[in-house]
């Protein structure tokens, strides 16, 4: 946005400033503010039909068929009965319509439920219960603990001191930690005095409604004084009041104006590659269609002047036709109508059904169900399935995605002695098992979930070892955790970072229980003895300092400084002698001990990554973490391997160095890529304006790349991004660390733009939202960092290891099914439609159809829809075990081998061949032929019956050929449809129906007369054989003559299935030794400010601090 525009916008905003007066409905009514009812539903009972239809006709395919319908209504060019288009169109529209209606009914219900919730409103000095939807701007409402906030309200006063109120914003931004809002003092003084509150007549001027959650500015004018209001005073709709008995608020934005509603419903719609391809192909088909119509209309013109002119004795021209030219112009449109089935009307609907079905498979997959959290995998977007089978790049977050983000106090070293390994009676180190778990029963405040396996530490605590006690004292004091005691004796800690929580919990279990804190004191129960420390100062954690410190006065009146932080940082501060006293010296600290907190890798992560890399999927880790941690994680989850040739580090702090580092790396990997003769360099030299596709380059070995956020900032700048891209894409694994959320998005975007392959981003935190939205597919891990990533994702599940199942099993199946579906679908319509083209040469190009109109109506809708749906819902070329064991099977999807323009052309050629067979074999059979009793079979109706029956047979055989897995359902669908065809045929030709509607159904008796004839069946078999044999031959020859990698694998699989050998067992990947020692403290600032400011604590009371915070 340019500066000018921004200014304009600012002016614009000022114009529309919102003015409101508390407790004055009359005044506020002047401004027509909406009431607090919300409406997320799209339609009402009355406007559903017109609005839904309008929306549906905005889709190209539907609009095309509407136009077609109008063309058919023009009698001069109509060549097909109107119902051939109307019936399929109605079916298609109503399927979509019903789906929309169901969705909307659900929205109506939820709206109704929300609008009818009750809220306490202050009316005439009394608090009255009312419905949410009746709340008006300017009302004062009372909110109670654990209740959702009704509208966007200005906090006036609350039960907590200083007018504080705690809210949880999980529904807004997904963060589950509490946030604090504070009322301005002039209103918080009113507390819950109803008289004062009802007399409150402040006037508020504020910005108009917008969707910025963290921004609000306004001015309160009360008793002639102006008070500035910011977003810390505003409780937003969708938040939940916590730890606050009551609070009063002034309603500022209602219903649709609230920030929650203003934020909703504007998600970008992702489209898959296949979607784009489909649109291109539909345009191609249009062109082919146009060309064919032109050809036929020229043919018609010639025929009319040569033959038709002389045939007028029997069939005079219409009065409006002056010459054969006019006639041929009209025939162009007639053929446009006849051949319309080239553009398949049910294509889009079928595609949607297939994707929906495949999404349900993901939702239903028990192996992607995470029992501990009772969470199944979820396909939140149902339109991207087949793209899951084409992923080439995976961008992964680290914390919470690769790792569990559950911090466990694992080991510690106190005064040079290491605790945490478990020993047996003989002093031998034994693996961790449940048997040697430490018993914490001596401590009734212990957290039962915590487990530790080294009894020596407990003994040391019990024996009151000086350093051990001091160590735990430090850990129990130096933190910013808040405690809550919901049930007597059960403490719940609220920590800003999980590692801090882990430390304090561990300390608690060893007998140093942090109880509560006020702004001046910290209460700790040390081995059953309550001690109150005076808190003198807190220096909170920050990303720059990477440590935090507290200064306390002990009950013995000693002043102590405790500090904890990153090993690298603290090491510099340590006293060189490392003396054993915990005293404050001016510039040196003494080392008490070191802790080891483990953030475990999630189960199966290394295996998953190895499998993915076998499937030629490149995994890049984009993390905000620091370099050492990231690299260690990369090694332990096998993104980097010890046997790699080299891992390049890019850590330059200026543009020159970064460029140099990238170039050096590339020179090593592929020296010739720096030469000017390199194809990409040639391409670059031409300076194309459009982003072009950067082809894959093969390096001369296995390499890895580590780049940090600082260098990345330079590398992502305009002219360097290609350098980065080329270097990074040659590497087997790429780690980007210290990244901002924006940089994550930029990296994803970079690859997406230049590589033109499918990218997938996976993450769990709010900082991953950018890349989740930017990538073709966004996957959210529903983990510990709230729901926000999940809410913005397309697919979500609980564990990283499910990714391989999602991609290799579901993705691959979806892709294969979609490709099979598309190629079959196009083929079936070509074979169906092109028969008309051949017939044109025998009927004077008069737009006569080969088939009965009812057959044309039902072909896509009834006769052939079920088998192809069955194929694309139940088809499995190999079973799931095989697709996981042979990740190589995934490759064709990445290169889009199964359906592309070439495959489409094959479909076209195959369709043309089939239509030839379908036309000329029946023609040869019937031409000049007669029944064995001399009666007619060469009539038009018999011919059309013969061709359409043959067509159905051929289509059934084709689908049977393409089906690898025969289930009961596919049998039922395939042969059932064939049976259904003959049933419908008999019905359509039955006496009763034809006698009732003689002018609509006129195929009376054709079925009965023809299906008895041997030559009909002979012709049917012959055509089917002729259509099928080339396909069988091609399928047999293709892997022999033009093999691709997959064919070999498939051959091996089939071999294995035939000769049941044990499937190759995946070798258990050895975890490399414990390489990880890194400080992974939170990057968020803790509660330090809040604690020292004293706002949160009731300074007076140790007693009252027991109340839920």
């Amino acid at each position, binding site marked *: 946005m340019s500066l000018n525009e921004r200014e304009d916008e600012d002016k614009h905003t000022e114009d529309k400033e919102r003015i409101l007066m508390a407790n004055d409905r009359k005044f506020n009514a002047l401004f027509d503010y909406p009431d607090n009812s919300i409406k997320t539903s799209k339609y009402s009972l009355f406007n559903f039909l017109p609005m839904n239809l309008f929306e549906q006709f905005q889709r190209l395919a539907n609009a095309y068929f509407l136009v077609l319908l109008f063309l058919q209504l023009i009698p001069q060019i109509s060549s097909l009965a109107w119902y051939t288009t109307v019936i399929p169109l109605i079916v298609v529209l109503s399927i979509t319509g019903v789906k929309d209606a169901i969705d909307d009914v659900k929205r109506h219900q939820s709206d109704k439920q929300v609008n009818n919730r009750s809220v306490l409103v202050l009316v005439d000095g009394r608090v009255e219960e009312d419905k949410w939807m009746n709340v008006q701007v300017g009302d004062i409402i009372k909110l109670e603990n654990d209740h959702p906030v009704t509208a966007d309200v200005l906090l006036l006063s609350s039960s907590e001191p200083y007018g504080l109120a705690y809210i949880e914003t999980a529904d807004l931004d997904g963060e589950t930690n509490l946030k604090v809002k504070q009322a301005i003092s002039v209103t918080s003084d009113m507390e819950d005095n109803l008289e004062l509150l009802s007399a409150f007549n402040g006037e508020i001027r504020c910005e108009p409604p917008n969707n910025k959650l963290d921004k609000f500015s306004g001015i309160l004018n009360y008793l002639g004084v102006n008070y500035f209001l910011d977003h810390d005073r505003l409780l937003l709709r969708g938040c939940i009041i916590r730890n606050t008995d009551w609070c009063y608020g002034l309603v500022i934005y209602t219903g649709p104006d609230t920030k929650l509603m203003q934020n909703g419903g504007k998600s970008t719609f992702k489209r898959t590659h296949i979607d784009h391809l489909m649109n291109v192909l539909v345009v191609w088909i249009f062109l082919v269609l146009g060309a064919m119509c032109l050809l036929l209309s020229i043919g018609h013109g010639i025929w009319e002047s040569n033959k038709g002119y002389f045939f007028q004795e029997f069939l005079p021209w219409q009065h409006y036709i002056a010459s054969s030219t006019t006639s041929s112009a009209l025939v162009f449109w007639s053929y446009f109508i006849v051949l319309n089935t080239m553009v398949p009307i049910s294509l889009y609907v079928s595609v949607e059904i297939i994707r929906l079905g495949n999404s349900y498979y993901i939702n239903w997959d028990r192996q992607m169900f995470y029992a501990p959290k009772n969470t199944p995998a979820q396909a939140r977007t149902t339109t991207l399935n087949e793209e899951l089978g084409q992923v080439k790049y995976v961008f992964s977050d680290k914390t919470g995605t690769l790792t569990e983000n559950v911090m466990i106090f694992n080991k510690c070293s106190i005064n040079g002695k290491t605790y945490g390994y478990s020993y047996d009676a003989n002093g031998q180190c034994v693996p961790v098992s449940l048997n040697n778990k430490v018993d914490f029963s001596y401590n009734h405040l212990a957290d039962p979930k915590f487990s530790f396996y080294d009894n020596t530490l407990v003994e040391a605590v019990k024996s009151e070892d000086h350093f051990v006690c001091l160590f735990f004292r430090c850990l129990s004091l130096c933190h910013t955790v808040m405690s809550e005691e919901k049930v007597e004796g059960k403490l719940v800690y609220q920590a800003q970072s999980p590692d801090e929580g882990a430390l304090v919990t561990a300390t608690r279990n060893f007998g140093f229980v942090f109880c509560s804190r006020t702004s001046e004191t910290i209460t700790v129960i040390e081995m059953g003895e309550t001690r109150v420390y005076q808190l003198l100062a807190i220096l909170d954690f920050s990303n720059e300092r990477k440590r935090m410190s507290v200064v306390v006065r002990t009950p013995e009146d000693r002043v102590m400084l405790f500090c904890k932080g990153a090993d690298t940082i603290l090491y510099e501060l340590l006293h060189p002698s490392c003396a054993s006293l915990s005293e404050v010296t001016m510039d040196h600290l003494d080392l008490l001990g070191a802790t080891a907190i483990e953030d475990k890798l999630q189960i199966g992560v290394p295996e998953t990554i190895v499998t993915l890399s076998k499937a030629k999927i490149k995994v890049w880790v984009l993390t905000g973490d620091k370099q050492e941690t990231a690299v260690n994680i990369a090694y332990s989850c096998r993104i980097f391997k010890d046997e790699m040739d080299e891992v390049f580090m890019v850590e330059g702090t200026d543009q020159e160095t970064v460029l140099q580092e990238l170039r050096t790396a590339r020179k090593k990997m592929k020296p010739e890529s720096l030469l000017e003769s390199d194809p990409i360099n040639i391409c670059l030299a031409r300076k194309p304006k459009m982003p072009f596709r950067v082809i894959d380059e093969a390096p001369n070995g296995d390499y890895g790349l580590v780049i940090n956020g600082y260098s990345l900032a330079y590398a992502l700048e305009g002219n360097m991004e290609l350098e980065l891209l080329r270097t990074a894409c040659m590497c087997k694994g790429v780690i980007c660390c210290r990244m901002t959320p924006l940089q994550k998005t930029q990296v994803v975007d970079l690859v997406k733009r230049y590589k033109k392959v499918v990218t997938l981003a996976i993450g769990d935190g709010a900082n991953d939202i950018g890349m989740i939205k930017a990538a073709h597919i966004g996957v959210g891990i529903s983990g510990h960092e709230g729901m926000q990533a999940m809410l913005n994702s397309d697919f979500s599940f609980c564990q990283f290891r499910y990714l391989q199942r999602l991609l290799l099993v579901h993705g691959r199946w979806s892709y294969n099914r979609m490709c099979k579906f598309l190629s079959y679908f196009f083929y079936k319509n070509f074979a169906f439609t092109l028969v008309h083209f051949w017939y044109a040469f025998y009927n004077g190009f008069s737009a006569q159809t080969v088939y009965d109109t009812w057959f044309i109506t039902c072909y896509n809708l009834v006769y052939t829809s079920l088998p192809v749906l069955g194929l694309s819902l139940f088809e499995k070329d190999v079973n799931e075990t095989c697709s996981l064991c042979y990740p190589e099977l995934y490759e064709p999807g990445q290169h889009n081998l199964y359906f592309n323009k070439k495959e489409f052309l094959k479909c076209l050629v195959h369709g043309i061949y089939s239509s030839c067979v379908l036309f000329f074999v029946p023609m040869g059979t019937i*031409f000049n032929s007669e029944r064995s009793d001399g009666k007619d079979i060469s009539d*038009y109706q018999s011919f059309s019956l013969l061709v359409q029956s043959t067509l159905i047979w051929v289509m059934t055989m084709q689908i049977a050929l393409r089906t690898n897995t025969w289930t009961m359902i596919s049998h039922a669908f395939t042969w059932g449809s064939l049976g259904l065809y003959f049933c419908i045929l008999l019905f359509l030709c039955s*006496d009763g129906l034809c006698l009732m509607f003689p*002018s609509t159904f006129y195929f009376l008796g054709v079925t009965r*007369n023809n299906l008895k004839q041997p030559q009909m069946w002979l012709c049917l078999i012959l055509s089917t054989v002729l259509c099928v044999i080339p396909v069988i031959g091609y399928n047999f020859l293709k892997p022999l003559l033009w093999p691709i990698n997959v064919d070999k694998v498939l051959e091996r699989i089939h071999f294995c299935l035939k000769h049941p050998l044990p499937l190759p067992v995946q070798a258990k990947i050895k975890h490399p030794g414990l390489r990880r020692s890194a400080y992974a403290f939170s990057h968020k600032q803790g509660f330090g400010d809040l604690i020292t400011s004293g706002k949160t604590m009731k300074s007076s009371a140790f007693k009252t601090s027991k109340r839920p915070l």
Partner: protein
Amino acid sequence: MGVVLLLSAKSTKELEINYTNICANCAQLREDSSNFDKECTCSVPFYLLEKMEGNVYMYYKLYGFHQNLYRYVLSRSNSQLLGKDIWDVKDCSPFQMSHNNTPIIPCGAIANSIFNDTITLSYNLNSSIHIKVPMLKSGLAWLTDKYVKFQNPRTSDLASVFAGSAKPLHWTKPIYELDTDDPGNNGFVNEDFIVWMRTAAFPTFKKLYRRLKRVDYFAEGLPAGNYNFHISYNFPVTMFHGEKSVVLSTLTWIGGGGIFLGLTYTVTGALTLLASFAILTIHLMLKRTKKSFL
């Protein structure tokens, strides 16, 4: 299969005589439609070399007559032909009404263009005795057509029911006079009419005209010898460059003597066999090369 089909096709006998040019003077006469009421007959003699055994069928065959044009095919009224609503002519454009605005029965382009030559066959036993070959004019059309699709209005007097209607433009007599001898073959259920109304799929087609009545001399079929076709030439074909002929034919279980199916089956079978051998060879060769590499 193909060989069986070919053999049975061989066993049929067929004789076709194209009389478009043999009756050239009549053809010329018919080119001018104003001469429609002038009679024109011609006689076509021919010699049957071998006798035709079994049932013999007589067809007329038209070349270049497009019974499959889009507008032509639709130009009929099925409800009229059902005898249900004989005044329903709305689908019959452009032959709905006659010049004086009376509805045409039967209406439409198909009915109007009915093949109206009469062909009789006589057998010349010797130079003086000419025997008219007895022919059946029933059993020509599908049973479903004859008894379900085409029905006369329920009445004893067809002429009175059709009063107030016009005969089609090219017809010489009204529908209720098509076969005055046999009420079961008159009106809409006249078999020649029904056969014509079942429109052909291709511009060249033959339609069943008569069946041999196997009595007397002809109990075994048509004996060899001299024959004569007597043709009352009414149907104009030259003006649209068409041709017409008359066909005598015997049939087998597979119908007429068309060799298409037989030929295609044979060729397909042979090709498939050849192709599968070729594929097998390629397969084996590739396997061997693979092994030699290993």
